[in-house]
């Protein structure tokens, strides 16, 4: 038997009792295995939710008068609720931190694992448990509150049980989200402690790679914001089963208060989605430009200030709810301050490209696609932060387009790019470049043609969450364009998943340690990494993106670069 020190995490990585088969995964406390397990479960759910998105778009092909129905009205609410709950709580919030954060964060800072490996495994179990509970719950009872759970609708409505009898699917869904919340809280705690306590020698805070910085900022949001929404959701459950009415006006409550509590979490949560993806972009771009990232410190600080300001602007989702005008004005004003650190990041990425030596790897394509899509998503956020325009655009397809641009075009593109970037390191296998690039082309074109028409629809007043809509040429034409876009995007998603599956099953084996010639620490260990990540204690002596020194080190043989240069 090999010594444990040199074992690959793929051979065994678990307590001695469970070292075989699936259990060796489900009982493993190894951060790398946990990351990969998250990846598989998350992308399975993503596949399901993506199909629901396709169904929604098909339904929107037909205005009310056409008589065609893909999704009957009583199922439409449940469809977009399931779509959104999966996409948000099961896919994009755990997203990059759970998959790549788990896998790469300890590697990036030279640690052997996260601070609390068993808690990490517990997070994963909570995730699985909550996920199954949510999906089954919504499916069985067609819960239809939307992902915002707005009372009093969510208190009064009784879901229509598919199999007859009483089934309180909304309470199930709420409880499931509560459980999922604890999963992410524990992950957040784990990462914060790991970053503070387990950095290798010489790895000062400002020598940490930017992905680690972004995870750090996102983790704080998870720790400090999630409990607020958790308890609010539980209160809705209590209101459904007990005669209290914190948010029910017939019992003296104020439904707007729930919206405050909900967005106190859910607005910062959008930065949980986007920050790690921004971090991934900040890794991919310097690597494929072969030069230091421009303005390292300001990007790191911008990550933290986005997280900080992100706390202060939640009520920009509530300009039309009739909260006080003073609050509207304050929140609108503060909202714009989040654009500034974001702008700083965007311009720093662009400046990194200047006088670079660019290779268009699939990871790089997705990173550049991210910049484009996210700029559109973020800039349309400006229309929504501005008071009078938000009054018009609120709850229309404009919002729907805005958040798909930020979440799909932004966060998910970043995550996909990150997976392309780290795929060879994680699995020791290489995907087909041709397929990967084709998947980007279809996804990029499809995505934009799917959601650009929805901005126009929104401007012309098409409300969201409509199963059908009045028969008007402007609506019909743009819905049609958008639906056709969804098919192109669909092909892209299919290509994407098949590229990965093909690579896993029959991809070319590689043990090359640093295929993209990256200067950060995670590439300086075996492919795939061994059980303890690093065979020897590592010591960091330079800035993570100092490519000049890196090239010298490669020449001297103290660092490992790409072998096929």
């Amino acid at each position, binding site marked *: 038997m090999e010594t444990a020190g040199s074992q690959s995490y793929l051979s065994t990585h678990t307590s001695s009792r469970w070292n075989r088969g699936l259990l060796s995964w489900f009982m493993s406390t190894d951060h790398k295995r946990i990351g990969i397990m998250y990846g598989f479960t998350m992308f399975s759910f993503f596949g399901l939710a993506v199909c629901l998105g396709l169904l929604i778009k098909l339904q929107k092909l037909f205005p009310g008068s056409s008589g065609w129905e893909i999704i009957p009205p009583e199922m439409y609410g449940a469809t977009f609720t399931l779509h959104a709950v999966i996409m948000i709580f099961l896919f994009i919030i755990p997203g990059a931190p759970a998959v790549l954060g788990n896998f790469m964060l300890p590697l990036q800072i030279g640690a*052997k694992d996260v601070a*609390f490996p068993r808690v990490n495994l517990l997070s994963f179990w909570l995730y699985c448990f909550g996920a199954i509970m949510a999906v089954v719950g919504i499916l069985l009872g067609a819960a239809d509150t939307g992902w915002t759970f707005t009372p009093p609708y969510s208190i009064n409505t009784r879901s229509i049980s598919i199999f007859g009898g009483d089934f309180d699917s909304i309470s199930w869904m709420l409880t499931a989200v509560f459980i999922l919340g604890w999963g992410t809280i524990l992950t957040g705690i784990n990462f914060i402690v790991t970053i503070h306590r387990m950095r290798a020698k010489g790895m000062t805070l400002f020598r940490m790679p930017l992905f680690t910085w972004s995870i750090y900022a996102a983790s704080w949001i998870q720790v400090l914001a999630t409990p607020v929404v958790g308890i609010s959701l539980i209160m809705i459950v*209590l209101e459904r089963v007990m005669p209290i*009415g914190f948010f029910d006006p017939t019992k003296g409550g104020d439904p707007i208060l729930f919206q405050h509590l909900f967005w106190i979490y859910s607005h910062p949560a959008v930065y949980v989605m986007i920050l790690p993806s921004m971090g991934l972009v900040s890794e991919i771009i310097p690597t494929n430009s072969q030069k230091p990232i421009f303005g390292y410190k300001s990007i790191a600080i911008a990550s933290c200030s986005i997280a900080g300001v992100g706390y202060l602007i939640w009520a920009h989702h509530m300009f039309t709810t009739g909260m006080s005008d003073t609050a509207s004005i304050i929140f609108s004003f503060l909202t714009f301050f989040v654009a500034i650190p974001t702008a700083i990041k965007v311009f720093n990425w662009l400046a990194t490209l200047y006088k670079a030596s660019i290779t268009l790897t699939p990871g790089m394509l997705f990173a550049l696609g991210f910049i484009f899509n996210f700029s559109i998503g973020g800039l349309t956020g400006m229309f929504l932060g501005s008071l009078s325009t938000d009054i018009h655009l609120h709850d229309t397809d404009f919002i729907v387009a805005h958040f798909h641009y930020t979440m799909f075009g932004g966060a998910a593109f970043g995550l996909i790019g990150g997976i392309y970037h780290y795929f060879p390191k994680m699995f020791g296998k290489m995907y087909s470049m041709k397929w990967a690039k084709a998947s980007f082309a279809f996804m990029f074109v499809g995505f934009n043609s799917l959601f650009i028409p929805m901005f126009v629809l929104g401007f012309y007043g098409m409300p969201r969450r409509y199963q059908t809509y009045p028969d008007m040429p402007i609506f019909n034409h743009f819905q049609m364009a958008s639906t056709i876009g969804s098919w192109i995007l669909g092909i892209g998603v299919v290509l994407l998943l098949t590229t990965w599956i093909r690579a896993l099953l029959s991809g070319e084996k590689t043990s090359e340690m640093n295929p993209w010639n990256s200067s950060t620490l995670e590439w300086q260990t075996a492919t795939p990494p061994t059980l303890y990540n690093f065979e020897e*204690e590592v010591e960091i002596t330079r800035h993570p993106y100092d490519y000049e020194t890196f090239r010298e080190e490669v020449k001297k043989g103290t660092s490992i670069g790409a072998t096929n240069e």
Partner: protein
Amino acid sequence: MSEQALPIEAFHHHDEEGTRLGFWLFLFTELLLFGAFFIIYSVYRSSYLGDFKLAAESLNTTIGTVNTIILLSSSLTMVLSLDAIKRGASGLSKTFLLFTIALGTAFLVIKGFEWAAKFDHHLFLQTSNGIAAGKGSPLLNPGAEMLPPGQVLFFGLYFIMTGIHALHIIIGAVWMLIVYAWTARGSINKDNYGVLERCGLYWHLVDVIWIFLFPLYYLVA
């Protein structure tokens, strides 16, 4: 983390300070969880000031004060227990733990009587007569005598907040029993008292939350 121990459990942590840091982070989530309740409480207090004051009058300040003192004392015994184990006096540490558990239980018992009295006066369930769970409209049971909504909210919040607080006390007490057993077994000792320390932190946080609950429900009437 310099040791080259092979089984993966081996480097599961001797980093006491890191573990403590993580535990503090966990405590923050508890703090914000109750924070959400405090926000709800303040909002409704500001819009139903009169009702809140009336309702608060039915709570017994003496009982509240006694319970506060009990909880503070239990915090003291907890500190002393930790102090004792640090000095190697595990017998003394166990005694103080028992005191803490006893005080926690006393708190719960008193709270229980207080709750029971409130139930007897139907301060909570009065509004529920005949209303289907959560879906009701007052129109459906016009006969029922209704408390004004502000008072219903007050008691709703009172029961939920003190209820969740009590749940924390129960969890703390169970945890202390486990700690007691481990101390008896010797696995918590002079050199390894992290579990006791964290249990103490948790207990004190529950105390801190009560420090705010107490004036809000019993005093500012």
